[in-house]
């Protein structure tokens, strides 16, 4: 159980671009990727963090054969997972490498097209459109495409899914069950989630304003983010950091709403800090969940205060850059958190104007250099009260 877990590779695709270097560039320049939604037609006027490539462009970039049905979730996931693996330059031959992926929508983008034809006439609709529907389908496809050989599974705990996937991967390495694992998540924009969040009345028609007193809701996004985690014995080109702490806790308050005392978020952060053996003031940056909804940000702010007291570390939500990428959020934001730690940056929280009552400390609103940072933390919270926190330490 004593195995240490290191991050040896990063992979990411989001509204900020294709590949990790594009993410870093945009985060440094403060350029949001959120635009009016163009991917599909909907009656809702929404702003979204779209990946600026069509499925066909993604397929060609990835060198996948023509004439097969690939869900967007699969395409985004493969791009990011492959980048994480290739960047690490690990020798795959003698290693057991797993894949633990998170997704909340799976192949819903393709199922929606099928269902429009199927609903009026159940003899219609091309069955091959359904091959990618189940959440596990994208995971299995990517696993085989990358020739992996270790444990393979999929997690869906809604918006905290990818943090749970990273946590599961780290635990499996610690237990000696695998040598390395690609862990994170992938989700694509689709009508299902646009309408779902719209029906809940928590979409902001303009740019989202996380942690602002005038926040009106979230912007949806899409993308994929993965970490390549390795045990101490695995040689890699670079070691970004060590996975120092993690915890998952349940708010047990409501199926969708967060409690006013932020119990789940508090327990997840507290658990991760305790595991990391850090004093709270040693955390140099927190990438908060910060969706921009009234309820989430208020609850998270209360939880931050409960964990850190008057000394809440510098924090920001990067959802103003990418939108909320749902099941991928923990993966995308873990990449951002590690880029912050690695480069000594605190990313700006976009669109912030006024402090909210629950939060004495405003988020970081401009890019700040923080070369002394030793540890950074990231939060992801999901439906069903699922709260998950990760902490990364410099090595």
């Amino acid at each position, binding site marked *: *159980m004593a195995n240490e877990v290191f991050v040896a590779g990063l992979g990411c695709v989001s509204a900020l671009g294709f590949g990790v270097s594009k993410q870093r560039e945009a985060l440094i320049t403060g350029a949001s990727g959120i635009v009016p939604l163009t991917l599909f037609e*909907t*009656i*809702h006027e929404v702003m979204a963090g779209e990946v600026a490539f069509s499925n066909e462009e993604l397929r060609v970039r990835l060198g996948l054969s023509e004439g097969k049905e690939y869900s967007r979730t699969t395409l985004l996931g493969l791009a990011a997972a492959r980048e994480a693996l290739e960047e690490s330059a690990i020798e795959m031959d003698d290693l057991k490498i797993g894949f633990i992926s998170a*997704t*909340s929508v*799976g192949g819903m983008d393709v*199922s*929606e097209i099928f*269902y*429009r034809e*199927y*609903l009026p006439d*159940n003899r219609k609709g091309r*069955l091959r459109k*359904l091959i990618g529907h*189940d*959440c*596990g*389908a994208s*995971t*299995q496809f990517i696993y*085989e495409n990358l020739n992996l*050989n270790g*444990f*393979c*599974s*999929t*997690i*869906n*705990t*809604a918006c905290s899914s990818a943090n749970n996937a990273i946590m*599961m991967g780290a*635990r*499996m390495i610690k*237990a000696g*069950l695998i040598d390395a694992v690609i862990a994170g998540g992938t989700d694509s924009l689709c*009508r*299902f989630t646009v*309408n*779902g969040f*719209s*029906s*809940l009345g928590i979409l902001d028609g303009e740019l989202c304003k996380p942690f602002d007193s005038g926040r009106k809701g979230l912007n949806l996004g899409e993308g994929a983010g993965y970490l390549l985690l390795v045990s101490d014995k695995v040689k890699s080109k670079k070691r970004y950091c060590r996975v120092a702490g993690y915890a*998952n*806790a*349940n*708010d*047990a*308050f*409501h*199926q*969708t709403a967060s409690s006013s005392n932020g*119990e789940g978020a508090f*327990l997840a952060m507290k658990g991760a800090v305790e595991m990391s053996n850090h004093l709270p003031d040693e955390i140099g940056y927190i990438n908060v969940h910060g969706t921009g909804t009234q309820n989430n940000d208020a609850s998270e702010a209360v939880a931050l205060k409960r964990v850190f007291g008057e000394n809440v570390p510098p924090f920001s939500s990067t959802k103003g850059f990418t939108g909320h990428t749902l099941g991928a959020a923990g993966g995308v934001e873990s990449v951002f958190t590690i880029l912050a730690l690695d480069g000594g940056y605190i990313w700006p929280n976009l669109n912030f104007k006024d402090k909210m009552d629950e939060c004495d400390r405003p988020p970081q609103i401009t890019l700040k250099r923080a070369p002394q940072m030793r540890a950074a933390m990231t939060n992801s919270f*999901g*439906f*069903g*009260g*699922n709260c998950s926190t990760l902490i990364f330490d410099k090595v």
Partner: protein
Amino acid sequence: MKTNLYILGAAGISQNEPDYKDFIQDAGLRRRMSRVIRMSVASSIMAMREAAVDKFDAIVTGTGWGCLADTEKFLVSIIQNNERLLNPSSFIQSTSNTVGAQIALMLGDNHYNNTFVHGSSSFESALTDAALLVLEGKHLVLAGGFDELTSTKRHLLGRMGMWREHKGGEGAAFFVLASEPTSKQRGVIKSVEILSLNETYNEICNKAEKLVNGNTLFMCGDVSIASILNERGFKSENYKEITGEFPTASALALFFATERLAEDNEIEKIVLVNKFIKDSSTVIELVR
């Protein structure tokens, strides 16, 4: 992975659904829950009552198809109402972790809660998580697997040709798992393995055969695996004749296996070998 998970309570629901009033008293809540949520919550309560445990260090679940009825209901409403004035209830309940979340909500449980959605190894992934939790020093884990076969799913799988050789199934099964033995356990899970997708029937059977120890019964989730093991001289049965085919049939079968151990004192070990169409096979080793 190798483990020692002591089963203190187990329950499963499939064709014969109980009167849910005995388990979910709130009529409004009962009505709002889709069938898969009701089946799952009720079977988890049955397992907890048997074990006399309602405090856990973790809740882990697995589902291959997810909360299909709610997903479909919301998808249909988007199309039929042309995206206008949608009721969010089915969207809220469409995520696969709704069951684990409902149980946590019911118990006021703030601990670890995770849900795996990887086809026919979803339940085995959850058991792997349970085994890891015990290795990390946790004591009590609630684990379950569930799937619902909606009429649309049945129709679509029919169009894909599934019912030519298989019969449909659905169900939920939950287990109260402990790190330490007690006097009233139903059995002990000694190992759980998810095999590579490419393994042939013979390779799967070779692996299963290595687990024979004393009077061993193979409960197989595939007719070919059952007959190969029979031909090799082992006692084996195809449980899909009873459970029907669905991704987490192995969870229901594990419940049946614990019942078998109780009924038949001669059996020392049951090895569950599952294979779902075009998916990974899995092995669960159960002893007294």
